[in-house]
C-alpha cells in the first residue's frame, strides 16, 4: 500500500471535506440571525458549497494528470466526473427543496444541510475502494435521505414514506453488511483491489465468498431499486416531498450505481461468470417491471418512480455488459438521466401547490398555456427519458451508449438489447401520457391558486432542457468525458469478461 502524505490524503478527500464543512456552515447559518431570511441564507450557503464541489471535481478532471489514488480512495476520471455530477445534482436539489419547502411553509436550514451531508456520502461512494468506505458512504447518504424524506413534519404521507424507506433500507443494509463480512472472511481483505486479486488467485472459502457476493449484490440492488428489490421505491417517491424525490431519483440512484459498478469492476471481475446471470435477470426484470407497471399509474410521481426503476434496468444493462464501453455508457447515461430527471422534477416542483396532495396527470393539463417554456422543458426532459433523438436530446445517445455497450460486450447481449428497446416502447405510453395533457388539454382551474414558480426552479428546468438539447445535437464532449471516466479496472480491455458463458 502506498502511503501518501497527510496533505495528499486531504487533497484526495477535499470535496468530501468541503461538503461536510459546508453542511456545518449551513446548519450554523440556519440557526443564527433573524427568522425570515435564515433558511434562505442557509440554502445559498449550501448551493455555494455544491458549486464549489462541482468546481473542485472539474478542476481535478481537467487539471494535471491524475495521480494514482490509494487502495481505499480512488483518484480517477470515474470518481471526479460523477462527483461533479452529484454535486451539481445536489445544488439543483438545494434550489428545488428550498422553493418547495417555502411553498409548503416549512422552509428550514436542516434541509440544505442534510442534502450536503447526503452529497458527502455520495461523493465518497464514487471514490470508495474499501468496503469500510463503501459502508460509510452508503450510510451517510442513506441516513441523510431518510431524514430528508420526513422533513415535512405535517405530512403523514412523508412520515410513512420515511419509515418505510428507513426500515427497508436498514434491512437491506444488514444484508449488504453481512455480505461484506463474508467476502472479507473469504478473501481477507476489505479493499476492492485486494478482494479482486484474492478472488483471482482462487478463494479459499468459495461458499463463503459466493454467499458474500450474493448478499452484497442484494444490498446494492436495493439501493439502485432493481426489481424485485424495488418495492419501496414507488411508495417512498410518492410520499417524499417532491423536490426530495427528484434528488433521490437522480443523485442517490447515480451514487448507488457508481459504487455498484466499481465493486463489480474492481472486486468481483474474476467472478463475472457467476454473478452475470443474476444481474442479467435483474436487469431484464427491472426494465420490464418498471416500464409496464408505470403504465398503470395515475400519479405523476409514481409514474416517475417506476420510470426510475426502468432506468435502473437500463443502467444495469450497462453494468452487465461489463466492459470499458459499459462503464462509459453508465457515466454517459447517468449524466443524461440526471439532467432529464432534475428538469422534470423542477417542473413538478413549480406545479405543486404546497400541500402533499399527490400530483396526477390532470394537473399537467394546459401546462402549455400556463407556462409554455416550462411545458417545453418538461416535454424535452420526458422525451429524453424516453430516449428520443433530437427532441429528447441526449437521452437518445444515452440509450445508444447502453445498446452499444450491450452489443459490443465480449459476449453480445442481444436479448437484453431487445428487451431494452421493447420495454422502451412501452415507456412511450406513459411518457406521452405525461406530455399529452400538457399540450393537448385545456387547463382545469386549480383548487388552490398556484403561485408563479420561483426563478431558480424555472432556471433549473430550462437549463436542464437546454443542456439536454445541446448535448443531443453535439454529444461529442460528453462522449469523450464518459470515455475518460471508465474505471481503471477496465483499462486492460475486455479480457476480464471472457469467462462469461452465453
Amino acid at each position: 500500500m502506498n502511503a501518501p502524505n497527510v496533505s495528499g490524503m486531504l487533497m484526495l478527500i477535499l470535496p468530501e471535506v468541503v461538503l461536510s464543512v459546508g453542511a456545518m456552515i449551513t446548519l450554523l447559518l440556519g440557526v443564527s440571525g433573524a427568522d425570515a431570511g435564515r433558511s434562505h441564507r442557509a440554502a445559498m450557503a449550501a448551493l455555494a458549497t455544491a458549486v464549489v464541489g462541482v468546481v473542485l471535481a472539474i478542476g481535478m478532471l481537467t487539471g494535471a494528470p491524475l495521480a494514482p489514488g490509494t487502495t481505499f480512495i480512488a483518484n480517477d476520471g470515474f470518481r471526479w466526473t460523477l462527483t461533479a455530477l452529484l454535486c451539481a445534482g445536489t445544488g439543483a436539489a438545494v434550489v428545488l427543496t428550498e422553493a418547495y419547502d417555502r411553498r409548503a411553509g416549512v422552509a428550514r436550514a436542516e434541509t440544505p444541510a442534510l442534502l450536503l451531508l447526503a452529497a458527502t456520502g455520495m461523493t465518497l461512494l464514487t471514490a470508495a475502494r474499501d468496503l469500510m468506505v463503501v459502508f460509510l458512504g452508503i450510510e451517510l447518504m442513506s441516513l441523510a435521505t431518510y431524514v430528508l424524506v420526513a422533513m415535512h413534519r405535517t405530512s403523514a404521507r412523508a412520515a410513512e414514506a420515511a419509515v418505510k424507506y428507513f426500515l427497508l433500507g436498514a434491512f437491506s443494509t444488514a444484508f449488504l453488511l453481512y455480505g461484506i463480512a463474508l467476502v472479507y472472511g473469504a478473501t481477507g481483505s476489505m479493499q476492492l483491489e485486494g478482494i479482486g486479486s484474492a478472488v483471482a488467485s482462487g478463494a479459499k472459502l468459495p461458499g463463503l465468498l459466493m454467499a458474500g457476493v450474493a448478499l452484497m449484490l442484494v444490498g446494492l440492488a436495493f439501493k439502485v431499486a432493481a426489481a424485485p428489490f424495488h418495492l419501496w421505491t414507488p411508495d417512498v417517491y410518492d410520499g417524499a416531498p417532491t423536490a426530495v424525490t427528484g434528488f433521490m431519483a437522480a443523485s442517490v440512484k447515480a451514487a448507488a450505481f457508481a459504487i455498484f459498478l466499481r465493486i463489480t469492476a474492481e472486486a468481483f471481475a474474476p467472478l463475472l461468470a457467476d454473478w452475470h446471470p443474476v444481474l442479467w435477470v435483474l436487469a431484464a426484470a427491472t426494465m420490464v417491471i418498471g416500464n409496464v407497471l408505470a403504465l398503470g399509474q395515475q400519479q405523476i410521481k409514481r409514474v416517475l418512480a417506476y420510470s426510475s426503476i426502468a432506468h435502473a434496468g437500463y443502467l444495469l444493462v450497462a453494468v452487465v455488459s461489463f466492459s470499458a464501453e459499459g462503464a462509459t455508457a453508465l457515466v454517459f447515461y447517468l449524466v443524461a438521466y440526471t439532467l432529464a430527471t432534475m428538469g422534470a422534477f423542477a417542473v413538478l416542483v413549480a406545479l405543486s401547490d404546497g400541500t402533499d396532495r399527490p400530483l396526477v396527470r390532470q394537473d399537467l393539463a394546459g401546462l402549455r398555456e400556463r407556462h409554455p417554456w416550462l411545458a417545453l422543458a418538461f416535454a424535452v426532459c420526458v422525451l429524453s427519458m424516453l430516449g428520443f433523438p433530437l427532441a429528447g436530446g441526449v437521452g437518445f445517445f444515452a440509450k445508444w451508449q447502453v445498446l452499444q455497450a450491450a452489443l459490443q460486450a465480449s459476449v453480445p447481449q442481444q436479448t437484453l438489447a431487445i428487451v431494452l428497446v421493447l420495454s422502451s416502447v412501452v415507456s412511450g405510453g406513459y411518457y406521452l401520457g405525461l406530455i399529452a395533457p400538457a399540450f393537448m388539454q385545456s387547463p382545469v382551474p386549480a383548487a388552490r391558486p398556484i403561485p408563479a414558480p420561483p426563478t431558480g426552479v424555472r432556471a433549473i428546468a430550462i437549463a436542464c432542457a437546454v443542456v439536454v438539447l445541446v448535448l443531443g445535437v453535439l454529444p461529442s464532449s460528453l462522449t469523450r468525458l464518459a470515455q475518460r471516466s471508465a474505471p481503471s479496472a477496465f483499462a486492460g480491455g475486455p479480457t476480464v469478461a471472457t469467462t462469461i458463458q452465453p
Partner: protein
Amino acid sequence: MISEALVVSAVLFVIGTIGVLTRKNAIVLFMCVELMLNAVNLSFVALSKLHGNAGQVFVILVMTVAAAEAAIGLALVIAVFRHFGTVDLSSLRLLKG
C-alpha cells in the same frame, strides 16, 4: 472456533431476518434489524482473528453507524406515531398502488 462463531453469527442473522419478516411493530422490526447488524459484527470479530484487525475496526464503525441509525429510526417512528397513532407497519397504507 472461528467457524462456530460464524455459525452463531449466521443463526443470529437468520433470527433477526425472521423477526423482520414476521413482526409488524416498527420498533420490534427495527430491533430485529439491529440484531442482524450485531450478528454481522460477531462475524467481523471472528474473522479478524483470521485476517487481522480490519474487521474489528469495522465493528466499531458499524456500531457508530447503528447508533446514528437508531436515533433517526426512533425519531421517524415517533413521527409516524404522531400521525397514525400506531406503529404497526400494516396500518401504514397511505402510499400504495
